């Protein structure tokens, strides 16, 4: 019964969505306040309906209602509660319901907090948001009904893929989806602005926090996914340039560009058409990501069983969305009035360059990801494009961005002086030389990669510190005043510094891991000793025991570092009997200088076990760097100026009074 209510709620949501698309859009065209007023309640009703459907599915999972086919295929009564819950979005149908839930949530957020938005803009934004929802609700109802019943109901379920039964992956999809889908709002705002034919700083001040929120979640989601792959797959890698990873990375790159260009629209009323285009591209890439993952059209290590027909449906949505929005852009964008002037050497100029670089970087990832598909279609040749390709293209493209990252924030708006900015960076340059030289000295005959990697990281970090010092006028006013200034900086300033520092930390981690990793694969029996670098590992024993829904072989290894006891590690090998699937649970000992990573393989008949040991320097820096970026996003979001009317420094008053959200 509950499942039928869920299904019914989805159908209802579909029809509410039709009304949500048509009525407010028509009302906005006619300037009819009553019809436009329909938008907010419709968005709320939409959110309510989908919440009911999602709740019904959740209930079916928690109570292990195996008469629902989806639950029977993806859950099991013995599964821990957390994974029963995460099982809801751990499969195709459930994840699509989650997708539309987030979509409706964002529509609802505009309805609830957008009281200060101009009526027509608000009505149109909610209408477009409804249109996206409509497409995906249609997709769910026609191809992926999560509430289909099984008769007779099986006694127990087929269980969730054991690799997904992991806390890292329980939260990875929701984060990623909030990020993906969050960009839908930037898209809806872009479409609405094109229909209105007007973009002003107030518009940007609306779009930016939502984009920032989506970006923050996407960053966290990608990081969680990468972390999961690192410890759960037992291969010791954290980024494989796999199509599915790239599918989430491309919207991230475009979204990062969008964040930066929206600043220019907000502060300087320039780059409007470009920002609109970026909003379209970012969400299109999110849609493409959904398509790539759901269609299984690209071979990927992350691919789960997939259905090409569903892929075709999403491809249809993708084509209509991209084609329609770009057509609208082509028609309306030339009418957007060009805004504030600036010279090439200025903050705006720096941000334009930032956008160009990030766009080109996105293009290289795009080509690398889709080329195999293209070649297969054209010639039938099957190829794979791996990490070496991206290291040879994406990385060099991004290097100028790192150089720029230190300089750009030091340039003033409108008209800057490159020499003045570069002169301020002498400390940073010195630091860079010391770090790069240090690496050269420490590692005799060091390859270029680590020298460059740490050098650029030092340059970026130095730039961030310089920028902060400039802001608080360090050493130019009394220290106490500087410290007071430091505490009174706006949230956005902290946000930028944190995110940029995060970038430097991340580069260190990635460089260390890629250049200094050492690996040992050997067979060992109880009592054997393995040596790798400073570490000595003694395999004490391997014991068999039982977990809630699996059996495991757990090894005990005593590790000493430089002869001093260091850690006891327990790598496991699990067998999940329901799916007859073995998994590897690596044991990782982390410290600030790096990880010691141990995984065991299957035991042989002679009593030996394959033991894989990696020493992976600086890996925790990768996660720390990414988390700093997330923290930066949160700090920026907390900036009051994003939420209430910002004092306008521009001499020209905006066309409207600074309208922003005052909902909270």
């Amino acid at each position, binding site marked *: 019964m509950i499942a039928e209510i869920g299904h019914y709620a989805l159908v209802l949501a579909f029809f509410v969505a039709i009304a949500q698309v048509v009525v407010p859009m028509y009302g906005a065209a006619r300037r009819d306040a009553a019809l436009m007023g329909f938008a907010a309640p419709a968005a709320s009703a939409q959110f309510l309906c989908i919440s009911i459907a999602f709740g019904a599915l959740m209930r079916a999972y928690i109570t292990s209602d195996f008469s629902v086919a989806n639950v029977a295929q993806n859950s099991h009564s013995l599964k821990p509660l957390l994974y029963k819950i995460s099982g809801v979005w751990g499969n195709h149908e459930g994840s699509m319901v989650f997708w539309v839930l987030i979509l409706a949530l964002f529509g609802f957020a505009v309805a609830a907090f957008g009281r200060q938005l101009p009526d027509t803009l608000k009505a149109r934004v909610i209408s477009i948001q409804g249109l996206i929802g409509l497409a995906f609700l249609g997709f769910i109802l026609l191809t992926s009904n999560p509430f289909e019943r099984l008769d007779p109901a099986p006694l127990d379920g087929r269980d969730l893929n054991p690799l997904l039964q992991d806390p890292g992956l329980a939260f990875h999809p929701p984060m990623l989806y909030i990020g993906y889908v969050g960009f839908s709002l930037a898209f809806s705002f872009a479409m609405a602005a094109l229909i209105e034919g007007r973009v002003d700083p107030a518009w940007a001040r609306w779009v930016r926090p939502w984009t920032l929120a989506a970006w923050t979640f996407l960053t966290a989601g990608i990081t969680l996914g990468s972390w999961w792959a690192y410890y759960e797959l037992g291969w010791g890698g954290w980024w494989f340039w796999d199509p599915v990873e790239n599918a989430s990375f491309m919207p991230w790159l475009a979204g990062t560009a969008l964040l930066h260009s929206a600043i220019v629209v907000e502060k300087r009323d320039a780059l409007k058409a470009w920002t609109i285009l970026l909003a379209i591209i970012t969400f299109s890439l999110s849609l493409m990501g959904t398509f790539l993952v759901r269609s299984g059209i690209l071979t990927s290590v992350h691919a789960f069983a997939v259905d090409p027909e569903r892929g075709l449906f999403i491809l249809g949505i993708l084509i209509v969305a991209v084609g329609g929005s770009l057509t609208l852009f082509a028609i309306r964008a030339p009418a957007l009035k060009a805004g504030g002037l600036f010279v090439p050497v200025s903050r705006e100029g720096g941000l334009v360059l930032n956008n160009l670089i990030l766009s080109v970087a996105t293009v*290289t990832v795009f080509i690398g990801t889709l080329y195999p598909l293209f070649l297969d279609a054209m010639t039938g040749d099957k190829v794979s494009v791996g990490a070496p390709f991206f290291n040879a293209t994406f990385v060099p493209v991004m290097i100028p961005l790192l150089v720029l990252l230190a300089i750009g924030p030091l340039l003033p708006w409108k008209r800057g002086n490159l020499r003045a900015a570069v002169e301020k960076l002498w400390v940073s340059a010195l630091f860079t030389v010391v770090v790069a030289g240090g690496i050269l000295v420490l590692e005799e005959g060091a390859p270029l990669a680590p020298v460059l990697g740490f050098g650029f990281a030092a340059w970026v970090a130095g730039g961030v510190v310089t920028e902060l010092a400039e802001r608080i006028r360090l050493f130019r006013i009394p220290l106490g005043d500087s410290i007071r200034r430091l505490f009174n900086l706006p949230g956005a300033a902290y946000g930028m510094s944190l995110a940029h520092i995060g970038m430097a930390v991340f580069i260190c981690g990635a460089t260390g891991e890629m250049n200094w990793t050492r690996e040992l694969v050997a067979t060992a029996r109880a009592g054997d000793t393995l040596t790798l670098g400073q570490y000595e590992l003694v395999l004490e024993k391997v014991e068999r025991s039982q977990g809630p829904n699996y059996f495991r072989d757990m090894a005990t290894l005593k590790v000493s570092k430089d002869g001093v006891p260091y850690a006891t590690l327990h790598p496991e090998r699990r067998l999940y009997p329901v799916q007859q699937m073995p998994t590897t649970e690596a044991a990782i000992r982390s410290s600030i200088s790096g990880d010691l990573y141990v995984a065991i393989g299957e035991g042989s008949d002679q009593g030996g076990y394959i033991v894989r040991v990696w020493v992976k320097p600086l890996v925790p820096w990768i996660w720390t760097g990414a988390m700093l970026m997330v923290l930066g996003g949160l700090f920026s979001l907390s900036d009051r100026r994003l939420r209430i009317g910002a004092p306008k420094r521009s001499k020209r008053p905006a066309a409207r009074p600074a309208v922003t959200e005052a909902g909270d």
Partner: protein
Amino acid sequence: MTPKRRRLSIVLIGLAMLGTAAALVLTAFEDNLVFFFSPTDLAEKDVGADRRIRIGGMVEDGSWKKYEEGLRSEFVVTDFQNAVKVVYRGSLPDLFREGQGVVAEGKFNGTVFTASEVLAKHDENYMPREVADALKKSGRWKEGEEAK
């Protein structure tokens, strides 16, 4: 600088960067594209012993031999028309099994394929697409064999 000239210079810089990126992409493609071959392709075409390639097919039943307590493995990959012997040193992925699809990356010297990497899948029912296509080509693909 007028807005028009500014836009022009931005477009020019953008084009220059795209050009650089295109050059990088083309050189990278030359060196880093890894082509896929089925066992039949290997029997028919000459691939050169130095080129990194990928092969795929089914692991032949009863062909998996382990040496040094599993540290070194040998198995036969087949598309049911032709077969190729694969040697691999290292730990095989959790889901490696006889009678299942597999993709391996490495080099082929004309008789033996030395794998440097054997690719794992997250889902045991999943069939690598190249493998499915290779089997279809050799006429051994049964519709409905692919789970779900």
